[in-house]
């Protein structure tokens, strides 16, 4: 006879992509790269969700160009997500996109109980609307303040300042401090921290960051990740996992002499 037909109680984990679809995303095949990177990251996210029975991972996506709108409006179980290509064209209504997200993070429609949401903002440019108003609306929502907010800066024209405002202050490194100057082992190599905009200068790096967000970060937000001791461990809504190696620093030097 089978074990009683019961399962571990779970909470929803809302994962929201907030995607820049402005005209500049047409350059260098960025839009295609982003579509591919998200599509490729979904099986990994589904697997991470499977290994985390206490999390029900639900995916949504917002696109923004001249206006912001929902690309995937219904919170969709990750294994059911079919990614339709985003199209680029227009300006950068990032503020409006944040307003849309803010409305969804209000309770209701947010459930009474959930895991910290994960918001991933991907942009290659500067907002052309009232970003500050959008961010203010967003940060008025307790669920947004408790969310894991990540930002990926595509190319060299991305406004890393507004992306940093979206993430919030990087509490680990006051302005001007040289990483490692405190004598502590830095959690992340020179200049790279998940609490900063992640620079994706090419398709491979973009794909790696999205893969990381959809697997390691989903794992951390739903606890299966082992907790490592370190300066970053007790900050933020969840301890953020190490960043993946990228093209620029393919695999960080395992034995640095100094930093």
């Amino acid at each position, binding site marked *: *006879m*089978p*074990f*009683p*037909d*019961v*399962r*571990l*109680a779970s*909470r929803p984990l809302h994962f929201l992509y907030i995607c820049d679809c402005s005209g500049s995303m047409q350059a260098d095949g960025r839009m295609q790269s982003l579509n591919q990177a998200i599509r490729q990251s979904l099986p*990994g996210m589904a*697997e991470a969700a*499977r*290994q*985390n*029975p*206490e999390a029900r991972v639900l995916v949504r996506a917002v696109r923004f160009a001249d206006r912001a709108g929902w690309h995937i409006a219904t919170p969709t179980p990750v294994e059911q997500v079919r990614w339709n290509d985003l199209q680029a064209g227009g300006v950068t209504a990032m503020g409006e996109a944040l307003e849309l997200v803010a409305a969804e993070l209000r*309770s209701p429609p947010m459930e*009474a*109980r*959930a*895991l*910290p949401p994960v918001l991933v903002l991907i942009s290659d440019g500067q907002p052309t609307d009232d970003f500050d108003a959008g961010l203010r609306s967003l940060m008025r929502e*307790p*669920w947004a303040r*408790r969310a894991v907010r990540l930002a990926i800066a595509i190319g060299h024209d991305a406004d890393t300042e507004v992306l940093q405002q979206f993430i919030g202050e990087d509490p680990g490194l006051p302005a001007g401090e040289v990483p490692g100057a405190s004598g502590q*082992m830095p*959690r992340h*190599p020179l200049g790279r921290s998940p609490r900063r905009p992640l620079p994706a200068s090419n398709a*491979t790096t973009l*794909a790696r960051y999205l*893969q990381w967000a959809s*697997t*390691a970060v989903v*794992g951390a937000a739903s*606890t*299966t*990740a*082992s*907790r*490592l*001791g*370190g300066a970053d*461990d*007790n900050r*933020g*809504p*969840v*301890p953020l996992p*190490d*960043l*993946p*190696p990228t093209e620029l620093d*393919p*695999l*960080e*030097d*395992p*034995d*640095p002499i100094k930093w």
Partner: protein
Amino acid sequence: MASLLPTDTVLTFEGLAAPLQVGHCLGGGSQGQVYAVELEGEPLALKWYLPSFLARDAGLQTRLEESIRRGAPNDDFLWPLALLRPDDASRARLGVAGRGFGYLMPLRPPAYVGAAEHAAGRIAISLRTVLRAAFFLAAGFHDLHSFGFCYKDVSLGNLFLDPGSGGIRIGDNDNVDVIGSDGGAVLGTWGFMAPEVALGQARPDVASDLFSLAALQFQLLTRHDPFRGALELAIPCLDLPGRRRLYAEDPVFVFDPRDTRNRPDPHEHVAALITWPLYPRRLQRLFEETFGPGLHDPSRRALTGQWKQALAVVLDHLRLCPHCGEENLEHDPDPGGARCWRCRRPLPPAPLLKLANGGVTVAEGNQIHAHHLDPLRAEDLRRPVAEVVAHPSRPGLFGLRHLGGAPWQVERADGRRFEVLPGETCSLGRAALLHTGAGPLRIGDHLLRP
């Protein structure tokens, strides 16, 4: 995920006589990636570390070398077999990844699935199988601690089980450390970490392993988290501060006999309410002790030997409801008589086969082990001596099937003597003395068939 090592290729390593055939990447995480490999035709697994992780875990190489030197505590561990560093030829191909290292370990057999599959209710598994897996888990940690090691990161993610047999495999043994050495980067996983570790007051060690083991046992046996009750529902966003409150600052066991603040919610925590009453008090008490006084006093946590003993005894008395076929466990004497937990109809009293060490309820599938016949032996479920089977055509008649080893010499009360060969079954319908290789076994008169 981008692969650290080239796949579907042959690589050579220092000190490894034969080249290693590297197959596909089986998975990866924040520490590194695991590959299916083959060494001289033998399928194995290779874990290769991310250099960023190596930089954070300075003691890793020493720990792995010590684990490899001492060998696996038992076969249930996917234990490191050899530390691998690329030789010059491979290093040139591997780039920066070639400056790091990895280790070889046994490959997880295909029948074994992640314990999360069980917790999520995605596999068909019996109560007996779950109890067996729980026993093997306790036995694994018993052997590990006896070897002088602690594990440090017990969680659902590091355990695999065979839904057919209840066999287990324990993975991610690279945090395993010599007891008391206080190294290593890992602190544990939320939901399994002992409060003193979560609060930063202690480093993971044997005492925290015992806490984590109990949390994992609870999840295996109930498909529920021991601290998620009413107090969890009061936390809208289960973020880091929320987890710290629930698991470290003010942890309250959902079935704490004295503190009832954190009882399971009848809608949100159904699993706990259905499964907990299935278990006899001897098991429930171990959880109550570990998650009660043991929260703050590590010396009060149930020991691996106590888990082994309690789980083995619970398995000795499993029986099926004659009305609905459901698996039922022993229950403390109840003036109204025992009832099936599913159909609520009365369970008729089952005969008990008294043995030198304890006894086994005469019910199909229950097994006799060497520890039943020799009180000096520790509980071990891996080499059963006999199994209770029903006669194929005579209802109510049970026998003991010989599960291997030398023939049993049987002396019946009427003076008849005969042999029972492995695979044959000796009737429990008549009083007799069985000489098994593991010790004598007396079938008493009280077992005469109805």
